[in-house]
């Protein structure tokens, strides 16, 4: 589904990604872990196509296409979803309106019929219940006045509504208490299926208790220094990032 080869990227002239290679197959959940400044969020944002990040080398193929060649909205329509670390507030634009506009754009792209207001509302209410979001949040301005947990829930709501083939979760656990984390994780897990893949970017192992990955990659200084199964996450939790960095250097 996703093939990253030797990806390099910089921000304002500073190299952040130093040659990342990663292969994600349909049905797999990959976790990318790493200390602050290791390039985790950069990877997520480069995949989504944020302009401030300049790709300086390497290739990314997504469902057989050159991903880096596509505009951000085309990537989204092709099924790449980014759950933001800091979802932005958009005053005056009601959540439900944004969701409907976005969903119908996706459906149109997939050659499906656009949903009318009634069937859309039915669907969105159902999904909101799934992530434990109160209905009033649907009618509020996008993310405005939402708490950290509510914002993240809103991200997962969108994810379950759009049913993306590849979901990139950027630090979705940051700022969540354990109850919120569980709900978010349930939402994510309900989306796991053989034809979808996920890339879970996180600093802490905590999230991976609830979203159990098939593979774990450790990122440091813009490179993957170690890959392994889910037990790698536990090892990291026990021994810290210092251990693995040292390990990588001596190896």
């Amino acid at each position, binding site marked *: 589904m996703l093939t990253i080869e030797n990806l390099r990227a910089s921000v304002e002239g500073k190299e952040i990604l130093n040659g990342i290679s990663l292969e994600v197959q349909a049905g797999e959940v990959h976790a990318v872990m790493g200390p602050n400044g290791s390039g985790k969020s950069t990877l997520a944002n480069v995949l*989504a*196509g*944020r*302009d*401030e990040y300049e790709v300086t080398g390497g290739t990314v193929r997504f469902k057989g296409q050159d991903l880096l060649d596509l*505009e*951000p*909205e085309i*990537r*989204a*329509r092709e099924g790449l*979803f*980014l759950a*933001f670390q800091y*979802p*932005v507030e*958009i*005053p*005056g*634009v*009601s959540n*439900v*309106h*944004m969701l*409907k*506009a*976005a969903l119908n*754009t*996706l459906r149109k*792209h997939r050659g499906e019929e656009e949903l009318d*207001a009634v069937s*859309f*509302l039915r669907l969105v209410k159902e999904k909101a219940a799934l992530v434990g979001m109160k209905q009033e949040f649907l*009618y509020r*301005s996008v993310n405005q006045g939402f708490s950290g947990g509510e914002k993240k829930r809103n991200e997962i709501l*969108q994810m379950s509504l*759009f049913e993306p083939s590849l979901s990139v979760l950027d630090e979705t656990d940051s700022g969540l208490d354990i109850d919120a984390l569980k709900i978010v994780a349930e939402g994510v897990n309900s989306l796991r299926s053989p034809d979808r893949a996920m890339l879970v970017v996180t600093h802490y192992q905590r999230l991976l208790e609830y979203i159990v990955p098939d593979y774990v990659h450790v990122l440091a200084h813009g490179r993957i220094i170690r890959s392994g199964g889910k037990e790698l996450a536990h090892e990291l939790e026990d021994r810290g990032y210092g251990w693995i960095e040292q390990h990588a250097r001596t190896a």
Partner: protein
Amino acid sequence: MNEQIHADKELASLAQREYKEGFVTDIDADTLPPGLDEDVIRTISRKKEEPEFLLEWRLDAYRRWLDMEEPGWPHLHYPKIDFQQISYFSAPKQKKLLDSLDEVDPKLLETYEKLGIPLDEQKALAGVKVAVDAVFDSVSVVTTFKETLAEAGVIFCPLSEAVKEHPDLVQKYLGSVVPAGDNYYAALNSAVFSEGSFVYVPKGVRCPMELSTYFRINAMNTGQFERTLIVADEDSYVSYLEGCTAPMRDENQLHAAVVELVAMKGAEIKYSTVQNWYPGDEEGKGGIYNFVTKRGICKGGGSKISWTQVETGSAITWKYPSVVLEGDNSIGEFYSVALTGNYQQADTGTKMVHIGKNATSTIISKGISAGHGQNSYRGLVKVLKGADNARNYSQCDSLLMGDKCGAHTFPYMEVKNPSAVVEHEATTSKISEDQLFYCRQRGLSEEDAVSMIVNGFCKEVFKELPMEFAVEAQKLLGISLEGAVG
């Protein structure tokens, strides 16, 4: 960085949208040669078969105007207007006033059909009922639903007709809110005003449908000087809409209107405007100079006047719909969206003058600047000595798109009563790259994302517009409809 450039490009294209109303109707017209003197005023008055008092009133206004100077304080730049180069009267040739559509020149009907203005009552019946007074250059072409309204006791007719049919009402209220010598453009209007609408809603009557006037400038080198007078008697209610368009021409054309509203005890007037005069081309050539004086007076206790405006057209806009809160417990509101793109300039806002006790006023202004547009909010909140417990809340937000435009805010607050609470907030910002990227990541095109964000920015004002107008307003901003499910 690039996001912003994209956004700017996007808005530039919005602001440069094609002006669909820019066609010219080829019709024979009775047009006065350019120039202004007392004879011209006498001619206008004669053509309209006016009573003596009105001619005297016009001449008095003209003499005052001669002594006045064009105001220099607005944040506007334009070449000096040569008032002798303008024609002050133009009417499509047709017989008198018409009661039936069948007698209206088909070219005129076609014009309004092209503009999407429902003049056919039968057709209108199918949809939402709106009574329309269609003003073409200096005369009213037709007024619809007059009979239905008459049954409710509501008078809705061209002002020139009201002068003949209801001279007492006209004499009593004309100039009572905006006196002939109020300001430079109001004085000019008082001298040469040609057409406009007159509305009288009797005591206790809730006007059964929305009233609207549609203004169209067609003739070349002609100014439009309409004058609208709305009187809502005790405990009545009326909602009035105003729309305007003009052909695309290279020359600037002058529009100097006066609107007067009178709300008696317990009455409510809701006045909405979607202003879409020709704004000029992308180089700033042509466009309407829109110098308008709009003022309402809440005369009686508990009365309410609400102005809502969406200003997207005109090369120059100079307009401050105001409310004089004379009655105790009266309410004044002003909701405004002003978009300036290309080389458009707007200096617009409101005045809320608190005289009575316990009066409340609200001001919500949203300015959007793009291209080389210059957008200024100018508003005055004045609390006089006896105006106990006056309350005002003002909010002015500006959205900037592109690095060649400007957004300016000039609120004035003058308070002479210690029990007043006056609050003012203003912000200026741009569409953030984060907001745009977020929307794009959800699959929306930049165009849709910008539209959606701009629409969200204006939402507080759009929700004040009658449904039909809200749709038109959003379309005007090039914005896809929001709210169908929200």
